[in-house]
């Protein structure tokens, strides 16, 4: 399905939810704010010791964790702020322009 149609962006004024009310929960997942980013961090899995310090500092919950191990970035929602780069003690996250 066309993404715009899926998000209701083709809705007419007669059909739009009253008061632009959002029906349902967790809908921010549908909004790919990752599109805003110019530069993205990259995950160097071989350097990662799974200390998970990067996970709580991410303002966009874009570092998924499964079975106590972090996975690669959720680039649909990562805005490329670079905070995680600074939090990593092992140089396992790299991003252009951030030491």
């Amino acid at each position, binding site marked *: 399905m066309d993404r715009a149609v899926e998000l209701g962006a083709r809705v007419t*004024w007669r059909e739009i939810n009253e*008061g632009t009310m*959002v029906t349902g929960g967790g809908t921010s997942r549908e909004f790919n704010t990752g599109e805003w980013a110019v530069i993205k961090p990259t995950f160097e899995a071989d350097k990662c010791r799974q200390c998970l310090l990067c996970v709580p500092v991410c303002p966009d919950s874009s570092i998924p964790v499964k079975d106590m191990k972090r996975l690669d970035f959720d680039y649909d929602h990562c805005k490329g702020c670079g905070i995680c780069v600074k939090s990593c003690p092992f140089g396992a996250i790299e991003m252009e322009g951030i030491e």
Partner: protein
Amino acid sequence: MATKDRLSGNEAVAFALKQINPDVFPAFPITPSTEIPQNFATYVSNGEVDTEFITVESEHSSMSAAIAASAAGARALTATSSCGLAYMFEPLYIASSDRLPLLLAVVNRALTGPININCDHSDSMGVRESGWIQLYAENNQEAYDNLVQAYRISENPAVRLPIMVCQDGFITSHAVQNIELLEDEAVKNFVGEYEPEHYLLNRDEVMAIGSYGVSDYYMEAKRAQAEAMLNVPSVVLEVGKDFEAISGRSYGFFEEYKMEDADRAVVVIGSAAGTGKDAVDMLRESGEKVGLIKVRMYRPFPAEALAGALKGVKAVAVLDRAESYTNCGGPLGADVMAALFRARSQALAVNYIYGLGGRDITVKDFAKVYEDLAEVVRNDSAGDTYRYLGVRE
């Protein structure tokens, strides 16, 4: 059975609120509306209502808290005047665009500056484009009656828009007048229980309001909001009719006073209409065909009906208790003239600015306006359409 009493306009509004027993009333005081929350707080303390009364730190907060309460599913309100209303400017638009039924008791007072606490309409006129319904009262009885009708209009599923019930600061808010009050039970039955369709505290429906409406959605949202406003007039009439059935007092978009055969008319809002009617009576005694229209529902503006009511008139004076610095006159003047133009009216129209910052308007002032209109008719020319009334020249 209705009871006769003597109340100030603020007392009348607070009393109507007691009878309605709303769910949430966040309040911040400002003259001359302070007595509304003050009197209501006494009802709360005495256990006469079970309203959640929240003292907040500003009018921005009182409106925001009322919005949040309404979104949660509560019947909410607040009250304010002048700069307090100006401070609510931002959240007012949120209330209307979120389509939240909500009541704001406005006691009209001039906006600063110069600093002034007395009556004019610059506060509520300043927010006339905020998407709120606006009703105005001539006297304490009308302030009470409008209050009783307000939630029925605001909460109607075809409307769901916030409503301002306005009265003139000090002139009606503090002056004590005879008033006929409805029985508690009659008001309760008339207003009814509030049953919101979608609300945040509904555990069976996950939802969010106050969303970010990017350009893909914003214009559709605003058009849908306009549709709700288009639905208001018929609801106002329907509620007015039901109100007449319980009170014997009838309410529409405006009141026509001796307009049947009038060739000169004044259009005015608020307490000045009472003074104007006196002038009409006086001039009618000497055979002059003059009339007056008092606008009750200003937003939405009843343009077509008003032009219809002015159909037989040769000259009309629109009286504005607010400047708008267009160099053409005030807001009511602009609306009435646009209505006349659309109706291809041949009436000559002039606009007066009067009563700013509590300046009194007298029967003599009205008589002068009707005299001016006679000259307009004689000259077959409106002359200067932007005039001041009651200012020292």
